[in-house]
């Protein structure tokens, strides 16, 4: 795979990633993450 092909793949991956991330934000997934992250996660600390 040439350097150019790798760069194009990386650029497409980054663009697709950014699009998915924005879609996820639009769908309210960041709120799910926030809800989980602001409460002590019992599973993480070994009590869940």
């Amino acid at each position: 795979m040439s350097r150019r092909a790798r760069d194009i793949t990386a650029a497409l991956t980054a663009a697709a990633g950014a699009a998915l991330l924005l879609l996820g934000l639009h769908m309210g997934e960041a709120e799910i993450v926030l809800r989980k992250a602001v409460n002590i996660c019992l599973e993480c600390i070994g009590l869940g």
Partner: protein
Amino acid sequence: MVKRLGKHIRLIVQLCWTALTNGYAMGFLKGGIYKGELKKICVPGLNCYSCPGALGACPIGSLQAVLGEQGKWFSFYIVGFLMLVGAFFGRFICGWLCPFGLVQDLLHKIPFPKKRKRLPGDRYLKYLRYLVLAVLVVILPLTVLDIVGQGSPWYCKYICPSGTLFAGIPLVLMNEGLQSSLGWLFNWKVGLLVVILLLSVWSYRPFCRYLCPLGAIYGLFNPIAFYRYEVDKDKCVSCGACTRACGFALRPDVEPNSTECIRCGDCIRACPTQALHRRGFGKERKVEREDGA
């Protein structure tokens, strides 16, 4: 002076990043966690969101949280985040920006007779991280549901040593209420953590190499990430200095973008002919193909 600093620059970046992203001092003082809006943003490394100092969210914990949510089967937010970070950096995150990677690096500096680059059974064990990712991070949180249709974060619950070290142990030490609820699960997780930490003294980053689902994901991006390595075939004399310098005994002269490479840069520094280099933006030099041809 610059050369001496260069040798330690990765450690300095790791320490600064860990301090910066876990800088909520009140959490450590009061035995609680940060509850602000920043927590909806993921940090790139395996940094537990229940660590008292954590200012951001852990991508692997977040992925399980979204997949376990009632009615969700995919996380656009987290998968998008991982693709974006992966496309730019690949496993550079592991080498430079992950707190649990830092802990293993520090432990490996402890002198120990007969250190090993890889554990016995490495040939098979190195695929375990993909199994952990598929089964504990994706399949079980998606399919084993409670009565309200909610899945559990299986990886956090039964495996994650980063959660035990940075969240479980400090929170339990600081909260008497939590101490009274300890049971077999906590003992199991602490036991696993101790084994991993002891193995890290003997062998280089065993958790990253064999178990980490986040490293497994970022590794897939190594071959195409903007941050990648190249070999100048005209300069390489096949002396093996890079492999001897590599903590995992990889062959960056043959496969500069292995899914196992954490981009620590030790091989580049060790190469006597400067044949190994980071991807430049100038004119393409004669570089080694991935298949070694």
